C-alpha cells in the first residue's frame, strides 16, 4: 500500500530555528529516510516553502477566487510530505514514529493512504 506521510508543525516555530538547528534536523530526518530508501520503499519526498508563499484557489459557484496564503489558517501548517510503500498501516506508523523521534518539538505526522499515484516526471 502506498501511504503519504504528511508533516505538520507550527511554522512560526520551525522558522525560528537557526540555520544550524535546521540543518541538524534535516540531517536526522535524512538518516530515517535513507533506511526506508534502501529497502526500496521510499517515493517522492518534498519540503514545502512556508505558507506565506502560498496562494489558494477557492472554488465557488462562479469564477474560482484566488486568495493569498494557505488553504486554511491553522495553528500547524503542512510543511512537507513523504510517499512510502508499506505493507501495513503499522509499518507506515513506525516510519512516522522514527521521523517524529528525529525531529525535536511538537507537530504531527498524518498518515494517509494514497488512492491514485502517477509517477510522471519533472526535471528538477
Amino acid at each position, binding site marked *: 500500500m502506498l501511504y503519504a506521510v504528511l508533516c505538520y508543525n507550527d511554522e512560526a*516555530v520551525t522558522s525560528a530555528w537557526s540555520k544550524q538547528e535546521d540543518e541538524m534536523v534535516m540531517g536526522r530526518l535524512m538518516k530515517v529516510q535513507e533506511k526506508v530508501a534502501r529497502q526500496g520503499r521510499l517515493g517522492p519526498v518534498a519540503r514545502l516553502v512556508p505558507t506565506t508563499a502560498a496562494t489558494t484557489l477557492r472554488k465557488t459557484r462562479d469564477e474560482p477566487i484566488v486568495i493569498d496564503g494557505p488553504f486554511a489558517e491553522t495553528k500547524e501548517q503542512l510543511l512537507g510530505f513523504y510517499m512510502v510503500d508499506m505493507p501495513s498501516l503499522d509499518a507506515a506508523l513506525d516510519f512516522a514514529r522514527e521521523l517524529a523521534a528525529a525531529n525535536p*518539538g511538537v507537530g504531527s505526522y498524518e498518515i494517509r493512504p494514497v488512492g491514485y499515484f502517477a509517477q510522471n516526471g519533472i526535471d528538477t
Partner: protein
Amino acid sequence: MTDQVWIEAALSSARPQAVSALLRYFRDLDTAEEAYQEACLRALKSWPKNGPPRDPAAWLIFVGRNAGVDAVRRNKRLTALPDEEKLSDLDDAEASVVERLDGADYRDDILRLLFICCHPDLPATQQIALALRIVSGLSVRQIARAFLVSEAAMEQRITRAKGRIGGAGVPFETPGAVERAERLAAVAAMVYLVFNEGYSAEAAEARARAPLCEEAIRLGRLLIRLFPTEPEIMGLLALMLIQHARADARFGGDGNAILLEDQDRSLWKAPLISEGLALIDKAMRHRRPGAYQVQAAIAALHARAARPEDTDWPQIDLLYRSLEALQPSPVVTLNRAVAVSKIAGPAAALDLIEPLADRLSGYFYFFGVKGNLLMQLGRNAEARVAFDRAIALANTAAEAAHIRGHLDRLMADAGKASVQRGAS
C-alpha cells in the same frame, strides 16, 4: 537536547507577540521586557515538567502579566499573587487569553512594538539596535558584535534610544486604517535597514553581520504572517530572500567582492530563491506596484538567469524605469544605465549618466560605472581618471581592491598595445 532546542525556539518565536502584548498591558517597555524575562524563566522550569502549552505566546503573556503585576505590587508592598505552581496549570485561563488576543490584537500589538522602534526621533542605527534588542531579543553582546562596537557602547546606544522614546509618548490606541498603513511602511523601511546593515558588510565583517540579514528576514516573515495580503511586504521579503540567497557567492577567498556576473551561481541558495520568486509572483498579481516589489522583481530576473548571458536586461531596464517613476533618484538611474549598456551599448549608457555627474560627484559607484563604460569604449585615459576618483571614494578595502583590479587591467592593456605598436 530536544526539549532545550524546542523550548528555546518556541520562546524566541513567541517573543514579539508576548513582549508586545505585555507592553500594551504595562505601557512601559522596561516593565514589559522584565515581565517577559520572568515568564521565560518560569517556562524553562515548567514546560519540561508539564509539557509544552498549547499556545506558548498566550502562556508567556499570561504568566508575564502576573509576574509583572506581582513585581509592581511588591514595589508597592502589597500582597503577592499566587505562586507559579498554581500559575503553571493554566488551561482555562490560557484559553480565555487566546480568545481575547486573537488575530487583530496580536497584529496591532506587534506592529506597535516595531513602530516604536522606528520612531522618527531615533537615528537609523539606534532604530536597528532597538529592534534587534527588543523585538528579536538578541543580546547586547550579539548586537555589539554585529555592529563592530564594544558591548558598553551598544548598551549605551540602546539605553539612549529607550530614553528618547520613553519621553516621546507611545501611541496605544488601536490604529485606524490609514495610520496602520503608515506604521507598516515605516516598519518595513526599518526591517530593510536591518537587512542592509548586514548585506552591505564586506567579507571580513560578513560573518559577524550575517545574523542581521537573517534577523531582518525573520522580521519580514513575521510581518507577512500579520499582513498576508500586502504586496509590498511580499516584495520586501522576496527582495531580502533573493539577495541573501547569494551571500555565499558574493566574496572570493581573498575577501574581494565578486560581481553578480562573475559569481558562481551554483552557490546561490535555491530554496531561498524559490521562496522569493513565489512571493514576488504572488505580489505582482495584486497589481499594486511598489518600490520593494520592483526591486524584488529585478533581483528575481537575475536569480532566474542560469547564466549571466541569460539575464533579461530589457525587462530589467523597464523595471528600473518604473522604479525611477516610483522613487526618482540618481542612484536608480545609475543602476538603469548598467542595463542600458547591456542592451544599447556603453555609449548610450554613458549619455544616460552624464547628467548625474553633479549629484553623484561623491558617489563611489558612479565613478566605478563610468570608468567601466569608458573602458568598454576604449577611452582608457578617461577611464583611468574615473577609476582613480572611485578609489578615492571607496568606503571599504574590498571596493578599492575591486577598482584597482580594473586599473591593473587597463595598465596591462596599455602595455600590450604599446608592445604591439612597437612590433608593427
